[in-house]
């Protein structure tokens, strides 16, 4: 029987290993899997590479992982926000590496990993500092940069609802990076506000369960 439900956040994150590459969904405070991140912070597992749009704000979420010294590297589009105190502290102390990726290129590199694409050309970043050292090509008169897929060991995903098959749907702008990240990791872990007893309506599924490995409930909204 297919049943991807696990009993607790703690069990859900138990498979994360030191040095893992971890994708974390969310944009601003919407769609961040706070429950899973807290559980990961409690494990103390370190040396992580975190791939996310932001690098945390305040004391919660990715900030908690940075505060606990679990993050060796951050790949994101926008690390510096008014609340990104823990990221800035670790970065300025040289304790965390940073790779800044344009937001759309970040999403597309993640999609490439999830979709078996070996790399792609995008105009984004051509002629800028972020293209330095990268392969470029002129296509139909425009400059393009070659970008590579971005794979992960683990994806931590926030959904509105999940069923036992791992089918997911999302709420409003909490969708953001979650669906694409769910496709790009070896092991995709979901916290859902609701874990349904019944199967989701097939037409309403946004992330088909094939992309999901574990589902647990975490009711709190930010």
């Amino acid at each position, binding site marked *: *029987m297919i049943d991807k439900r696990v009993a607790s956040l703690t069990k859900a994150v138990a498979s994360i290993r030191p040095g893992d590459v971890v994708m974390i969904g969310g944009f601003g405070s919407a769609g961040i899997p706070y429950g899973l991140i807290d559980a990961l912070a409690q494990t103390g597992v370190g040396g992580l590479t975190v791939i996310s749009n932001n690098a945390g704000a305040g004391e919660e979420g990715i900030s908690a992982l940075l505060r606990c010294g679990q993050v060796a590297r951050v790949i994101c589009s926008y690390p510096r926000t008014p609340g990104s105190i823990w990221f800035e502290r670790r970065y300025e102390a040289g304790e965390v590496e940073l790779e800044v990726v344009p937001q759309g290129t970040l999403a597309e590199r993640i999609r490439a990993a999830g979709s078996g694409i070996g790399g792609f050309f995008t105009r984004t970043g051509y002629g800028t500092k972020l293209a330095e050292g990268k392969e470029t090509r002129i296509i139909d008169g425009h400059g393009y940069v070659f970008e590579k897929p971005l794979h992960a060991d683990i994806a931590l995903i926030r959904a509105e609802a999940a069923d036992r098959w791992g089918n997911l749907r999302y709420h409003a702008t909490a969708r953001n990076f979650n669906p694409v990240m769910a*496709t790009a990791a070896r092991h995709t872990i979901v916290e859902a506000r609701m874990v349904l007893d019944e199967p989701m309506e097939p037409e309403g*599924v946004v992330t*088909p369960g*094939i992309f999901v490995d574990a589902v647990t409930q975490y009711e709190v909204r930010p």
Partner: protein
Amino acid sequence: MNRLSDDDVARRLAQDIPDRAYVNLGIGMPNKVARFVPEGREVMYQTENGLLGVGPAPAEGEADPELIDASKKLVTTIPGSSFFDHTTSFSMMRGGHLDIAVLGAYQVAENGDLANWATLDESHPPAVGGAMDLVVGVPRIYVIMRHVNRDGSPKVLRRCTYPLTGPGVVSRVYTDLAVLDVTDNGFRLVDLAPGNTLEDVQAVTEARILS
């Protein structure tokens, strides 16, 4: 020589579809496999035209003409099904998310090469569909076919002579005579159809079969 019926080959292959597998079944013989998977295993079948969780044919009068599989047969949904578009469908395939694809073949070679989309007859226009995407993206490619052509010529070969669907992609071959694994050293016998010997099968096989 004892030959299994197509149904019995499908039944044999079905034993190797584990519980919780995500599986794409090609058109024809591969499509028979679903019906023989042992009870108690929950298998999710994907059809590339946008459905994960393909259910059986609809009951009389309950057909939805817009709910079909890749062979254009009317199907149904099952609990856990989801609909999606073609890009998501091929992300599943190409991204390595399916576990098994079961495909028919014109020819299979001992190096794992598969030929199942075109012959050397160029009088007809070619047609490839999703076969080339499946073979590169799905980790286990199971071929199901008759062991020899109608004229007795071999289909299990040293090298394919027809245009390839993909090089080195086949994991295992299920025929009416035998089950063969593709290994680094070529074909290795897994199973014989009851009543046959390896020598019987080797006699109608161009490639060498290791025991």
